[in-house]
């Protein structure tokens, strides 16, 4: 694990990803203290509306006269909270299903994997939209919908890993000395599948941030006046082309954060896969 981390940091692109993610975490945690105008999350100053970027308002102001710089900073927190909760929930659903289906063949495995396939057969966003709409639109619903549509990726990943590992010599040895299957699965198979899950989760973070922003943009995610990046881009549309800064900066924030997770995920994948590590040099 430590060698993997050292290797990760030696890869400049992955290190950059890690840097962006750590920076975003820092911003998210200390958002109310970093943002110059934290009160702009809810208050409006109509007199200051749609000011272009300046020293006072680095990213300009929006149609309610709120400082976009502050709102982008405050939005980091909700973007990360959404992404972390969705990915965690998806792991909690997907990993046990993958373990159970991969461990033994039989009807249970068949049923679990067929259900997974059905969920994978519908593009995630469409399913999330349908769920989000049916369960009354809102941020919580959007999160539930995203988690309910992302778990199959974890189920597939863990299923493949469990399949691969259940025939391994050390698993036979453990069974031979009388270890309970549950013990083998949780203490021996799961840790070995962890790197694959971690890579999936990192990439899933970026993906979830994008999809959550899109749900916000389409009006099925966060509701005003929440400082949400996707929502901000939607609100900005009617003020184009004059207030170009309004739509530009929240979108750049989305890009930077997703970029960070994707670069990190890429690096993690290379570090977790020795075959790729050698070929890269």
């Amino acid at each position, binding site marked *: 694990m430590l060698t993997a981390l050292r290797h990760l940091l030696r890869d400049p*692109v992955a290190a950059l990803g890690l840097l962006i993610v750590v920076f975003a975490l820092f911003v998210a945690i200390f958002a109310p203290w970093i943002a110059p105008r934290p009160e702009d999350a809810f208050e409006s100053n109509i007199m200051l509306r749609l000011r272009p970027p300046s020293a006072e308002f680095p990213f300009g102001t929006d149609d309610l006269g709120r400082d976009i710089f502050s709102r982008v900073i405050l939005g980091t927190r909700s973007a990360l909270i959404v992404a972390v909760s969705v990915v965690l929930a998806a792991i909690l659903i997907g990993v046990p299903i993958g373990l159970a289906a991969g461990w033994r063949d039989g009807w249970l495995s068949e049923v679990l994997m*067929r*259900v997974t*396939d*059905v*969920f994978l*057969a*519908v*593009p*995630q*966003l*469409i*399913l999330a*939209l*349908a*769920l*989000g*709409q*049916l*369960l*009354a*639109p809102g941020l919580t619903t959007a999160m539930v919908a995203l988690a309910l549509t992302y778990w199959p990726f974890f189920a597939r990943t863990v299923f493949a890993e469990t399949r691969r590992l259940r025939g391994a010599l050390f698993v036979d040895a453990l069974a031979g000395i009388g270890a309970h299957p549950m013990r083998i699965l949780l203490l021996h198979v799961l840790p070995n599948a962890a790197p694959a899950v971690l890579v999936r989760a990192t990439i899933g973070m*970026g993906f979830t941030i*994008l999809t959550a*922003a*899109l749900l916000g*943009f*389409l*009006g*099925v995610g966060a509701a005003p006046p929440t400082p949400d990046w*996707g929502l901000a*881009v939607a609100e*900005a*549309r009617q003020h*184009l*082309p004059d207030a*170009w800064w309004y*739509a*530009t900066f*929240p*979108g750049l924030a*989305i*890009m*930077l954060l*997703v*970029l960070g997770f*994707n*670069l990190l995920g*890429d690096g993690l994948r290379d570090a977790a896969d020795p075959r790729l590590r050698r*070929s890269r040099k």
Partner: protein
Amino acid sequence: MALYILRRIALSIPALLGLILLTFVLSRVVPGDPAATLAGDAATPAQIAQIRAQYGLDRPILEQAVIHVRQVLSGDLGNSIFSGRPVAEEIWQRLPATLELTFVALFLATLFGIGLGLVAALDHNGPLDHLVRVVSVGGLAIASFWLAIMLQLQFSMEWNLLPLRGRLDVALGQVPRLTGFMLFDTLAAGRPDMFLDALRHLALPAFTLALPGLATIARFTRSGVLEVLQKDYVLYARAAGYGRFRLAAIYVLRNAVTVTVTQVGLLFGALVSGAVAVEAVFDWPGLGTYAVQAILSADYKALLAVTLVIGVVYAVVNVAVDVAQAVIDPRVADQ
């Protein structure tokens, strides 16, 4: 081969049935009483009961599920709650617009993705390789709805180069609908000017939609080509004096592209999802705008039907991809 294709088709049937059941389950999650929703606010209990009987909502749930599956299989997707018209008809009207956009985007993504991936691999660790890496990682990080708006801002509002929205300039009139594919219908009507206009309308949406796919394809092609370049037969061909590009075109690409084809198939789903965002921004009259409209008007019938249709299209594409893969690399069919 024929046997393989048949088996592949048969394998997709359970997933499709599952999909139909999933939409049924989803329609049961609808908050409140669907019969009351259908009847409207002013309905009397008697009217609601009548609607319940009419739609079979008073039957046992399993029976309803069977009825639902039968209806869907016969092409009946119910009536839109918003417009009252059959959903299947409305979707049929709009499907070609989405498919045209998606296919053009897929074409762009595949063409440029394979090209960039090949160039990057042949220039391994060189400047071109790094440039392609930036493009491929960055392309996946951009929110498509934001990119669409930024492109509109530059190309349509600022420079006035390309149209802002829609599929065709209304001032040019209309063409008779043959296929619903604008690029085809305008040519069939003998209107090259409208064909060019349709292309101009496609440019921004198709590019926006293609970018993430292009990034993915470039990445997979790059690693595929790098892997094949290590093979002995490539070494042999090189020793025999083949030039770099001849080698790439004849020996490497075909072997490397098998992986890419799988990716193209997986991408199709991502593209259809992406189309929702892109269509919403460019007012593209396809399934995506229909879905968004359905969301805004709480039309769950329409939304579930869109889910179903996209799922079916997705399944068909996946079968097509597996078959294409078997054609490129016959070893796949033997496994």
